[in-house]
């Protein structure tokens, strides 16, 4: 079987794969990084979003073999080594931006990528950027609010506050 090598969360990772092995399968099954989730099979839900060479990518939409030599960051690589959550993760906890937690890794990775590109997005820009991430629990209210807060915006004036 062919081999693939990449850097995942700052550490070298090598494994045997089939040609059809998806990145998400390689992460979950070979590397046991089960924080990246599979919620659909049509690249719609975004539960599997990771960063590949700094870009947010749906890990169900890319073959593991395509990531030869790439720098991959998953949800497991977002917090500091001592477990301190990064600002996006912390904002999700502070603003109750998650319930069942299943879409959460993809939401956090997508939000982090958005803030990298656009450090001060409007509500409309956030909602638009999240089109590829489905959450069934939160009605998106607290996810959008958490991302606004992570961007340093005052969220005290939005509806219901």
């Amino acid at each position: 079987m062919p081999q693939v090598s990449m850097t995942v969360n700052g550490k070298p990772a090598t494994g045997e794969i089939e040609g059809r092995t998806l990145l998400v399968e390689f992460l979950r099954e070979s590397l046991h990084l089960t924080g990246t989730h599979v919620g659909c099979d049509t690249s719609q839900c975004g539960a599997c979003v990771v960063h590949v060479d700094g870009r947010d990518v749906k890990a169900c939409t890319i073959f593991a073999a395509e990531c030869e030599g790439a720098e991959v960051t998953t949800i497991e690589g977002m917090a500091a080594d001592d477990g301190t959550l990064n600002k996006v993760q912390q904002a999700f906890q502070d603003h109750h931006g998650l319930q069942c937690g299943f879409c959460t890794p993809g939401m956090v990775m997508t939000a982090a990528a958005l803030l990298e590109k656009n450090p001060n997005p409007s509500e409309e820009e956030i909602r638009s950027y999240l089109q590829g991430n489905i959450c069934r629990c939160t009605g998106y209210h607290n996810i959008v609010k958490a991302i606004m807060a992570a961007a340093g915006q005052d969220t005290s004036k939005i509806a219901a506050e």
Partner: protein
Amino acid sequence: MPKDGGIGDATKRREDVRFLSGTGNYTDDINVAGQAYVHFLRSDVAHGKITGLDTAAAEGMPGVLRIFTGKDFEGVGGIPCGWQVTDKHGEPMQEPAHPVLAQGKVRHVGDPIAAVVAETREQARDAAEAIEVDIEDLPAVMDMKAALEDGAPKVHDDLSSNLCFDWGFVEDNKAATDAAFESAAHVTTLELVNQRLVANPMEPRVAVGAYNRAGDDYTLYTTSQNPHVIRLLMGAFVLGIPEHKLTVIAPDVGGGFGSKIYHYAEEAFVTFAAKAMNRPVKWTSSRSEAFISDAQGRDHVTKIELALDAENNFTALRTETYANMGAYLSTFAPCVPTYLHGTLMAGNYKTPNIYVNVKAVFTNTVPVDAYRGAGRPEATYQIERVIDKAARELKVDPIALRRQNFITEFPYATPVAVEYDTGDYVATMDKLEEIADVKGFAARRAESEKNGKLRGFGVNCYIEACGIAPSALVGALGARAGLYDAATVRVNATGSISVMVGAHSHGQGHETAFPQVVAEMLGIDPGMIDIVHGDTSKIPFGMGTYGSRSLAVCGSAMVRATEKIINKAKKIAAHLMEASEADIEFKDGQFSVAGTDKSVAWGDVTLAAYVPHNYPLEEIEPGLEETAFYDPANFTYPSGAYACEVEVDPETGKVTVERFAAADDFGNIINPMIVDGQVHGGIGQGIGQALLEQCVYDESGQLLTGSYMDYAMPRADDVPFYAVDHSCQTPCTHNPLGVKGCGEAGAIGSPPSVVNAVIDALQSGGHTVTHIDMPVSPSRVWQAMQG
């Protein structure tokens, strides 16, 4: 002000840390050493006779270990139904067999025919494609009314027809209700569809079965809202495994919304196959598979009539509903259109005469069961749409018409067999008018019209019956289980506590909210308290989480168990301080003797319980662990008023939700942050139903909405921020916390106000349309505008 971490505090959720750092433990994250993988070959036709099934070629494929078919399950039990409804003639419902794998016939697209177990997931999938199956197509029964016509093809040959039951509620009300319609000054009639939905928790279902030959015992890991219910149903009815030989574990579960209540064939299969092959077997559903195997929701076709007198008082309500059961009876399917629907038809109003008729029908579709709200959204939608239509016909303000007919005195016995204990519908409506800024609507409409858009305002109320349920009552109504719950409070020697609860948290935040209650009662740091759930080997018993019951029922059991702990701890404290038990006061984690300065701390007492050197051993046992079972005296009745403001683009028919407001009465609140989140999520699903979602089959029974490419899930840009308020609180009178439940309210309360707002917008533009069925899609709105 609430105490830090106590009742009423918006404590941040402790479970978030693992979910945010990728260290949750969902069922698909669990791999048992030596496991094989199963792939199900499923029917691609809606109705047919299996005339040939040849697995020989598939058996020779790489990695294939064994292929199971219906033959392997002859003599094994079928998937049971947990509720028996009695029809209006006193006869039991028709109840078909539901085999684990098809026995000679397939009855919906997705019905499992064979199961391939192989070394890898891919090998199992590849081999399934090599199975040769011949199916003689039979005509599919799709439309409920056509299914009931004489000579219609039958979904189940051994039943007399496709009618599961014809139910009247309350049958004794019928004559008086009909008479009230005869003498009514005005009657408003509405025919509507509450469309079929798919629950779609983001985590697809997974099941891993394992068997230990040495002890002849089984473990099932499964995505369930109620592991004890699965143990009961699968153990007793399907596989004949006694409880002490079967452990069911539901670890982190990624949402449920009802669809993970039921016992499914795949759970029984992996458990059965694990013993048959002496290897663990794992199944992970794909999303496409979920669309054809998860129980679906709603699917009611209804005619509702409202009678009013000359002063616009409601005098009678009459409904006829056709409720789709799908091809088989899922676990709680028969109770959804009956006891979770008919009992709520009074809504928030003092209508004296109500009669509900429900015909439950088998069709060649995926089984239908409870989805968030379950029967109560269907009731609320009908009532609140017909009231709105009546207000427009009578040219009165829809809010004023509602207010005029509100129930205002409690307790209130409805004509449909339930008694509301508390509520204040005037207060929630007052609050709604404030937070929705009703006064500012005219200016906002003028602004929209300036921009070429139509703007509409819609309102509705809701009542729901939660805290399911008093066992004796539901037993009399056909439930085949009790609906109490249980909790064990285990206090350790150092004073830390594990609380084993029968409720299951799959997004609701029990791990944070439940300790808040115990911390408040004991006056100790909530960080000393952990919740254990989801494992039948660790918790005493439990009926699980659905019907907004966790805190009202299981939380009450936890309170009772904690009270027992306090009583025993007082006895120990009295002994330690050489005082009378009657003089012991307990506050903020300190036991003191009334009128003295003597006291001992919580930790002194817990240590004494486990190191009983100085201990009243002749009076009480060592240790500090108590269990309580709690059976509720009544349902709880959360209620509220919701408002939606939409803009309609007259060029395209597209509806945009501009504002949404919800004023709820949930009784007492443990964690307001979590409650807000539950309401937000329910509203998101309700807007999804109103505007986007619909499960569509074609005439031949093919599912046209089989993935997220076709089934329109609400996305972040489909919804606005929501204004929510739960400051109106009339505590439940019959449970110790005074809580009512908040999990389903948003999904129950939101669809009618969205549709009412769309009709208001269109009528403001001069269109005469009085109703559009959900989802109120651009094409439906545009067609309605063309007259």
